[in-house]
């Protein structure tokens, strides 16, 4: 490089010298040219003659100038020649420089490859030693290093090195890696074993070997190495599964009393799961209610913690514990050993936290299992067991704190605690589910048995003890009865029958509400809503499931009507009965009154359907006789009698099945309604006959008296009711007829009167008519005379009953 620089400088000097010569020449030339110019001017100015001489002279001068120009050219060429040479030299120098650089790089490459090969060699040869000294993490590091180094070596960069060398090195490194891995695997499988214990039937055993043939087993370094070689994850997965299956699940299942015991024998620690000795009280013995008690829960959680602690201590300790242990060893260990243990590449930051890793594998499964098997089972059956809620919550917290202590969990992981703190909600959800399921199965039962509902004993009535005596109610109760009779209390439910199923549902609702009053507000809302849901469920399930039966069977239809009214009755007062005792916000908002109307409508729907159905059947039976004419013919008489019998049979049956089911007042109204329908139809059918012979009259009178006689027995009437102002009809009819019937069945009197008219002679009718009209003001003829038939109807009857005589003519004229 120095030589090159000298050449350059020389060349620069040369170029500088020649330029000075040129400049001098140019200056001289300038001067000469000025002189020549002056002479030319002088000559031209002096004489032409002298011109030629001067011209010649000038030519000479020209020649001289040409010479000078040549000189100048020469100088120029000289200068050009000098710069080209410099450039060439420069070029050569650069090429030489590039070549040298490349060589240098090659040399560097070769050196680095060789260096790496050396290091690989060192690692490969050193690995066996590391393994022998149980320095597994360092061995693992070597493996990683070799891999990294080998991957850096690009086969194309091998500069003549024999490719075979690399192939051999790679093969060797693979072999070593496999050897390390298999060694670690063997170490793992021999030192940590999960098995079925041979000395106890069915018991599980977890064995951790600490020393093998008096040599300590270096499980920790091995595990660290396994982690760094990415082998630990899968091993830990398998281990956790087995641990769950063999230890934790049996403990959680709690069907056989098990307790973990730790034994240490000749460098082997083992954890065995077996039944405790007889003197230890069995946790299952405390289980009476079928629910997990808090004591049991604590015991089980302690057992699970023991198992985890064992694994934690002997297999997967937390990082801080390992470091502390290492430091403790360091103080006693010689300096060389200390360097071995914590080799310079292996600093604390590289150590994996095995406990945390173990936790990450086990915890998701474990906490789910604990929640599903233990905490769910520990959910109390009644909301007033508040100490259970607190205890479960505390136990969950303690368990999780222990897990954090073991290093399995990070601070702040609270799955169990979150569940336990939500146990109120879980309880409420479970309770709600249970109650609705129980209510539903009760609703679906085919048991249609009924119970008598007694108004005086029924809750929710104004007289019942459960009903709070508010000012309004007290007023109502204190008001003297104005009509002398006992005043019916508005909120009383009449005596009747309801189904057992409905009674049970209402009882359940009361029980639930009682429980709500003693519950914490969080639970109370859920339980209160569950009660409302139960009534909604009733309305949705019962009419659908039993609807066809209720429509078909008269008694069941009416029972369902009662059921609906019974529920509606309780819904009215349930809110008032419990409101003051319910926790907020229900003490202000709780009500069931909104459900009253749908229940009433439902009951009425079935009631009306049943009434329509029965009325249609009665009418159908009467229609089947095809009118009442010609009853004197035996065949026709049989048909009519059959129709009337059907009507009476049906009414008798309904009276029998409804008598004790429906409230008395409603029963009488119901039966009266049906009797009215039947009597109305018979009256109109008889009035439709255009000609009634004497024999037919007897038959018809017979039918009418049969119906009257039987219909009277169908109603349940209070005999003590005093007879009201007697009328003509009351006087003339059978004295024992209860007047209440006449008000209940509007057609009754007319029906009876029809029988009387059929029995009367024309003269009797005329006489009664005249007597009636005389006693009353015109315009109110019918009522005053006790005639329940319109004049036209009477006229028609007279025409049908009596043959055309002058007397009939005269009588008919009266009705015009």
């Amino acid at each position: 490089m120095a030589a090159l620089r000298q050449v350059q400088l020389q060349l620069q000097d040369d170029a500088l010298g020649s330029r000075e010569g040129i400049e001098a020449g140019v200056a001289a030339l300038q001067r000469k040219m000025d002189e020549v110019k002056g002479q030319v001017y002088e000559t031209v100015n002096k004489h032409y003659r002298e011109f030629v001489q001067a011209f010649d002279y000038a030519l000479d001068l020209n020649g001289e100038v040409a010479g000078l120009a040549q000189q100048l050219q020469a100088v120029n060429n000289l200068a050009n020649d000098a710069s080209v040479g410099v450039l060439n030299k420069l070029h050569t120098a650069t090429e030489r420089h590039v070549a040298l650089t490349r060589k240098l790089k090659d040399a560097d490459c070769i050196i680095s490859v060789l260096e790496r090969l050396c290091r690989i060699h060192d690692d490969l040869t050193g690995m066996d030693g590391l393994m022998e000294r149980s320095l597994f993490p360092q061995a693992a590091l070597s493996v990683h290093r070799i891999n990294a180094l080998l991957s850096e070596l690009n086969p194309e960069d091998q500069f003549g090195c024999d490719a075979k060398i690399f192939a051999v090195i790679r093969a060797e490194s693979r072999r070593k890696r496999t050897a390390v891995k298999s060694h670690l695997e063997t170490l793992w499988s021999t030192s940590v074993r999960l098995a079925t214990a041979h000395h106890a039937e069915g018991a599980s055993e977890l064995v951790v070997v600490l020393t093998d043939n008096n040599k300590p087993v270096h499980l920790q370094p091995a595990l660290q190495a396994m982690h760094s070689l990415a082998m630990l994850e899968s091993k830990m997965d398998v281990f956790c599964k087995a641990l769950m299956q063999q230890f934790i699940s049996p403990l959680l299942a709690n069907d056989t009393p098990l307790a973990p015991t730790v034994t240490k024998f000749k460098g082997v620690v083992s954890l065995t799961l077996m039944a405790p000795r007889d003197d230890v009280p069995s946790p299952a013995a405390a289980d009476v209610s079928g629910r997990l008690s808090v004591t049991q829960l604590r015991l089980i959680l302690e057992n699970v913690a023991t198992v985890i602690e064992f694994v934690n201590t002997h297999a997967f300790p937390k990082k801080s514990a390992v470091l502390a242990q290492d430091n403790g060893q360091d103080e006693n260990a010689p300096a060389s050993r200390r360097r071995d243990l914590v080799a310079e590449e292996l600093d604390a930051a590289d150590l994996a936290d095995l406990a945390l890793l173990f936790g990450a594998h086990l915890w998701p499964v474990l906490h789910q299992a604990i929640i599903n098997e233990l905490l769910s089972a520990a959910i109390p059956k009644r909301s007033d067991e508040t100490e259970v809620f607190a205890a479960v919550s505390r136990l969950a917290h303690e368990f999780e704190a222990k897990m954090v202590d073991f290093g399995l969990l990070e601070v702040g992981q609270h799955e169990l605690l979150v569940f336990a703190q939500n146990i109120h909600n879980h309880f409420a959800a479970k309770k709600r589910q249970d109650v609705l399921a129980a209510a539903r199965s009760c609703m679906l039962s085919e048991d249609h048995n009924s119970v008598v509902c007694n108004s005086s004993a029924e809750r929710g009535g104004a007289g019942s003890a459960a009903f709070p005596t508010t000012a309004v109610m007290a007023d109502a109760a204190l008001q003297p009865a104005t009509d002398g009779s006992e005043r019916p209390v508005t909120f009383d439910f009449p005596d009747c029958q309801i189904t057992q199923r409905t009674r049970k549902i209402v009882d359940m609702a009361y029980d639930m509400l009682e429980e709500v009053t003693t519950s914490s507000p969080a639970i109370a809302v859920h339980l209160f809503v569950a009660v409302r849901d139960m009534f909604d469920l009733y309305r949705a399930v019962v009419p659908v499931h039993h609807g066809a039966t209720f429509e078909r069977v008269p008694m069941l239809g009416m029972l369902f009507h009662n059921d609906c009214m019974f529920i509606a009755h309780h819904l009215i007062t349930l809110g008032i009965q419990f409101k003051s005792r319910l926790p907020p916000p229900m003490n202000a908002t709780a009500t069931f009154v909104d459900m009253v109307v749908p229940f009433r409508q439902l009951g009425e729907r079935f009631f009306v359907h049943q009434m329509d159905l029965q009325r249609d059947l009665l009418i159908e039976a009467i229609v089947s006789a095809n009118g009442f004419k010609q009853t004197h013919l035996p065949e026709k008489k049989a048909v009519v009698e059959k129709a009337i019998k059907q009507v009476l049979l049906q009414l008798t049956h309904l009276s029998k099945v409804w008598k004790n089911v429906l409230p008395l007042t409603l029963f009488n109204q119901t039966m009266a309604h049906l009797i009215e329908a039947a009597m109305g139809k018979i009256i109109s059918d008889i009035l439709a006959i255009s000609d009634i012979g004497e024999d037919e009259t007897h038959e018809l009178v017979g039918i009418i008296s049969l119906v009257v006689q039987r219909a009277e027995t169908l109603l349940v009437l209070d005999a003590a009711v005093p007879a009201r102002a007697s009328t003509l009809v009351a006087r003339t009819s059978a004295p024992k007829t209860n007047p209440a019937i006449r008000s209940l069945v509007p057609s009754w009197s007319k029906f009876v009167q029809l029988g009387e008219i059929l029995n009367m002679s024309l003269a009797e009718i005329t006489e009664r008519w005249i007597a009636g009209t005389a006693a009353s003001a015109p315009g109110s003829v019918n009522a005053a005379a006790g005639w329940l038939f319109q004049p036209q109807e009477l006229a028609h009857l007279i025409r049908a009953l009596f043959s055309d005589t002058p007397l009939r003519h005269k009588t008919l004229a009266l009705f015009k």
Partner: protein
Amino acid sequence: MAAASPRETTFKLLLVGESNTGKSSLIMRFTDNVFDEDLSATIGVDFKVKQMFLNDTTIKLTIWDTAGQERFRTLTSSFYRGAHGVIFVYDVTRRETFDTALDTWLTEVDTYATNDVVKMLIGNKIDQTEERQVSRAEGLAFAQRHSMLFIECSARTRVGVEQAFEELVQKMYDTPALWRTGPTNNVQLGGAEEAPALDQGCGYC
């Protein structure tokens, strides 16, 4: 003379009687040949179908079961309408199901059913010999008094069940009035008139 073409007819059969006399059990035994000790009470009306063959006629029996318990009864004329035969069932181990109860049932049947309906009296539960309260002679006397067919049987042991139904079907088959008036009868009139001629020997009504 025998009709070559297969004929088919439907008979409607009713079972009445007090509760727990075994009406549903008799039907179950006859149609499905099973016996259930814990059969629940019939509610309203139930019915089953059974096919039988008599001579060259296929007979489809629709057997209507009623609730014996008064509270579960549905009293409708449609139940009796078009019935060809009625079976009155009583329990030989309980006299109350025989004495007054049968009269009540007879009244009801007479009120609703057509006059020529074939009636049969069945005394059930004869397997319980120890508890028997109604003798065979009493049953037979009642049946004769009311011109009914009579048979004693046991739904539990199957004794007499099939004979009862077969005898009743035969009787219905032999009563031509039923054939013509039966609303569900799908035999053509000509064929119906032929039938009794075929079985003249068997008719004993």
